[in-house]
């Protein structure tokens, strides 16, 4: 799977001509074309954000407050205990930082676009996107960029760095690179699942509620996996792998890994989520009847 979701795949219906030329042309040209398009989308987003500067800054404050809130919750819990399972205080801080980092990167690229999909279906604007000579999933998923989220991701990195120092972690480049790669898998899983939920808007118009319901799942992703047992743990590991997305990267970073089984499981779940999400997307597109006709 390429970094840009679906960039080198073609949507089933609308791009018949585009697909032909892309197949004939060399791949780098396709990639360059998509990068040019994406650069234009970025430019649009920057312009849009700068129109409401005050609001832009206030949203960053909101996110910072909620991040601080989660950290103070952990602070209060550890006033009364030394461990959650085997997780110590600074390990959990690292976990909350990582989960915030993953969530913010996800939010920077995908969140608005996923929540907007139901709106596109409802008012029929999806028609125009289907007619564009680019992969539809690409434009739908990456149309807007949330720039403030990058700043919030940076605060998450600062918190993680502090926690790592408190834990006296000796980090090699290998550690950090593996960590980052696994975080990206986490971002990819969040995106695949939320996009999957968003595509239900092809069947029920009121999908926005479902998409926001996904927000509850982020709350699980930032809790230590050892707190869970039984059905709950199985569901949130093998069906909606929330207990893997941030726990596994942090286990790598904090040397809390017994074997390479968990990272492999995370990557495997990433592939599985991506495939299911793409399959449902294609199925949904076939189901699409424009709202305007």
């Amino acid at each position, binding site marked *: 799977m390429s970094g840009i979701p679906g960039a080198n795949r073609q949507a089933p219906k609308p791009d018949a001509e585009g697909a032909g030329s892309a197949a004939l042309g060399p791949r780098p040209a396709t990639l360059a074309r998509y990068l040019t398009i994406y650069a234009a989308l970025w430019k649009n987003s920057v312009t849009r954000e700068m129109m*409401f500067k005050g*609001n832009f800054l*206030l*949203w960053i*404050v*909101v996110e910072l*407050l*909620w991040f601080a*809130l989660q950290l*103070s*919750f952990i602070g*209060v*819990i550890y*006033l*009364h*205990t*030394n*461990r*959650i*399972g085997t997780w110590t205080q600074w390990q959990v801080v690292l976990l909350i930082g990582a989960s915030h980092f993953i969530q913010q990167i996800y939010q920077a690229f995908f969140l608005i676009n996923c929540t907007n999909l139901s709106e596109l279906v409802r008012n029929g604007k999806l028609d125009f996107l289907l007619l564009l000579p680019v992969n539809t999933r690409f434009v739908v998923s990456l149309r807007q960029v949330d720039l403030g989220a990058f700043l919030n991701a940076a605060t998450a990195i600062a918190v993680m760095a502090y926690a790592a120092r408190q834990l006296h972690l000796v980090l090699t480049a290998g550690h950090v690179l593996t960590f980052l790669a696994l975080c990206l898998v986490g971002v990819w899983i969040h995106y695949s699942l939320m996009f999957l939920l968003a595509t239900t808007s092809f069947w029920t118009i*009121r999908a926005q*509620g*479902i998409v926001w*319901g996904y927000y*509850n*799942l982020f*709350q*699980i992703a930032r*809790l*230590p996996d*050892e*707190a*869970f*047992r039984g059905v*709950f743990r199985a569901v949130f590991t093998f069906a909606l792998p929330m207990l893997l997305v941030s726990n596994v990267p942090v286990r790598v970073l904090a040397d809390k890994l017994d074997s390479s089984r968990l990272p492999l499981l995370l990557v495997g779940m990433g592939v599985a989520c991506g495939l299911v999400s793409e399959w449902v997307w294609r199925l949904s597109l076939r189901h699409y009847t424009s709202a305007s006709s």
Partner: protein
Amino acid sequence: MRYGKGRRHTVRPARMRKYWHVINIGIQNNLAYRFNFLARALFGLIPLVAILSVWQTIYAGQGAGARIGAYSLAEMISYYLLVTVVDALTAVNEDDWQIAADIKDGNISQFLLKPMDYLWYRLCLFLSGRTAYLAVTAIPLALFILALKKYFVFPASWPVLLLFLSSTVLTALLQFFLSYTMALLAFWVLEVSTFIFILFAFEYLASGHLFPLDILPPALAGVLSFTPFPYQLYFPISIYMGKATGGELARGFALQVGWVVIAYALARFVWSRGIKKYSAAGG
């Protein structure tokens, strides 16, 4: 609009009657969103189960009969279940967004002409929203609590339950008046959601949503007890669990009533200022 339907009424019942109609219509409108309510309540159980599991793990790590602050495991679990119950009874749902939208779209103009007060109108809609929400979610919520029955602590006596319910009503009023006031910021700013979320963050932490406030260091909990936040959630629960009794109970009720009155006065004040700004903008 005529609500008397030809029959004669004294002024007062007629006045009550129109608000009764608002509540009725509000319930019907809200019931249209019943699946949304149900989805919200069921989705909301997932983080609840998660946090309960975390506490269970913490208690398990401390050996049998462990207490955290003044809480046994059963009491801790009951606390979070009661948070869910009080939240279902009192939380402001979409009201603040709707009020802000009413102001931005100019819908409030008609209330300046109608013999109906906008604040009471919104309070009626808030009540009907809560009623509809409860009608849909009471059964799943009750089943969930039933599943955790062995951890659920019941109130010590009937008077305690009665005090809990009265305090919950005050909590609902406080929640509503504060949200109403925040939404009125729409008179001055284009986008109120950031302000609402900032207040919500403080409420979430300081009202006891995340953890019972009395596991905080006593000095901090003491300071918090003077802010409105504990009276938005924590106080009724502490009554239910028998943590607030005697003098503390009386003091808590006094503070809660005080904050409700202040929040109401603030709502009226901000409205009167906002209306001036609003009519000026209307030319």
